């Protein structure tokens, strides 16, 4: 589903990603593990088209390296950035629906996807009318995931989703991911995390990143 081929990224004269190559099959759950500053966020930002990268990035076999950033979500990529980054001018539901409106999805399709998000995270429904600026950190993560799910039909990228979550909330978040996986067995997930132990039970593919170099370990299950 997702493929990196010899990707290099430099920022302000410093090489952040070095000849990165890896691939995630459809239905794979990839854990991108590395420390702060190792290049995790740069990797996902490269998928989203926010960096100037050389090399090729492919989605479902098609190269997206030259696709403008704003057209990539429409290809089926959902992205829940680090730090939530909700739009505080809107309610929770408006936040979740905005990608569908921007993508000009039909009413029926929008409804279907919204229902999927609510199925995966029932707690979102209760928050629907709350201003996005007023939800707690953990709730915000859920909203960000819900928003990512609206367009993420092929690939959903979660950047540090567990960071800052109290254990109880982290558990709920993990449960939501499991429901998503059950609901949508073919979707590819890419999750970044700094604690290697956290995703061990969850991921079937582990990508460890260190100093901009990625090493892929196919987990036994894959």
């Amino acid at each position: 589903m997702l493929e990196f081929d010899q990707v290099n990224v430099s920022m302000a004269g410093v090489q952040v990603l070095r000849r990165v190559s890896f691939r995630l099959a459809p239905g794979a759950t990839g854990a991108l593990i590395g420390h702060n500053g190792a290049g995790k966020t740069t990797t996902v930002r490269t998928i989203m088209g926010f960096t100037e990268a050389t090399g090729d990035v492919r989605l479902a076999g098609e190269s997206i390296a030259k696709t403008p950033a704003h057209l990539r979500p429409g290809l089926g990529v959902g992205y829940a950035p680090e730090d939530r980054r909700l739009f505080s001018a809107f309610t929770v539901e408006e936040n979740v629906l905005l990608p569908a409106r921007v993508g000009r999805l039909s009413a029926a399709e929008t409804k279907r996807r919204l229902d999927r998000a609510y199925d995966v995270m029932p707690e979102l429904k209760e928050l629907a009318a709350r201003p996005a600026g007023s939800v707690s950190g953990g709730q915000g993560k859920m909203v960000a995931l819900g928003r990512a799910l609206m367009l993420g039909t092929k690939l959903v990228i979660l950047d540090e989703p567990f960071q800052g979550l109290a254990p109880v909330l982290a558990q709920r978040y993990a449960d939501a991911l499991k429901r998503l996986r059950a609901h949508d067995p073919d979707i590819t997930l890419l999750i970044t995390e700094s604690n290697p132990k956290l995703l061990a039970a969850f991921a079937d593919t582990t990508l460890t990143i260190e100093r901009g170099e990625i090493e892929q370990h196919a987990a036994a299950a894959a």
Partner: protein
Amino acid sequence: MDSTIFILALLDGVSYAALVFLVSVGLSLIFSVLRIVNVAHGSLYAYGAYVAATLSLAVAPISPWLTFPALLVASVAVGVVVGGVMERFLLRPVYGREDVLQLLITFAVFMIMDNLQRLIWGVQPIFASTPLKLLPNVSVLGVSYTSYQVILLPAVALLTVLGLRYFLRHTLAGAVILAVTEDREAATAIGVDARRVFLVTFMIGASLAALGGALASPTTSLVPGMGADMIVLSFAVAATAGLGQIEGAAVTALMIGIARAFVIYLQPEFEVLVPYLIMVLVLLIRPMGLFGVDKVRKI
């Protein structure tokens, strides 16, 4: 006399504030989305006025009532064409570079537009007051006002506040603008073409400045240099309100407009000083402006 002065100054202040608001809200909108202080904003105001005057002089012989749509057409035309060219070809290439460079580009555009304006429309004052004359005068406490100034202008300003509010809150285009304002990258990540939003926002902001000029054109003589003072005045309003604050700009424009009117009645010497004095005092107490929000940096 006291209550008379109060009412008269209020009326004068409101009609003045209406024009200043239109210009400064455009400036504020552009800043909030693009993070650019557009020094050429006053030139857009001037061009709005000149094009509106040219257009209404052309259509007035057909029917004087056509001058009203002419004002609107002129502002949109200026906003879209001049604003569009400016954003697309001059500002876009320098995004991502030092902020001051964008500011200086707009400063250069200000100089160029000021000069071109002279070459296009000449230096003689131009006056196109048909719309002003079509509407009747109203008398308040024995003082005659044009309803254009004390009714139409404030009404347009009010409509603009409400319209912008509605646009930003209840339309997709508005939602997209708000999203880009808050977080450009997160917006891109949900499929928003931020570059187009920049362009459209700049055009809207530029159109608002041009609308201010177009609406001012029936009441004033169009002369070279008319834009330069408007820029600083709208800076003052936008900064005092807090950059990016739409309703705030309306309230601040009113405050400055009314304060200025009172000063003309009571102590005319300090008329020019008023907006800047208010600006200094407000910024000293609240650096983010009256309605602005402070942000703490994460470390």
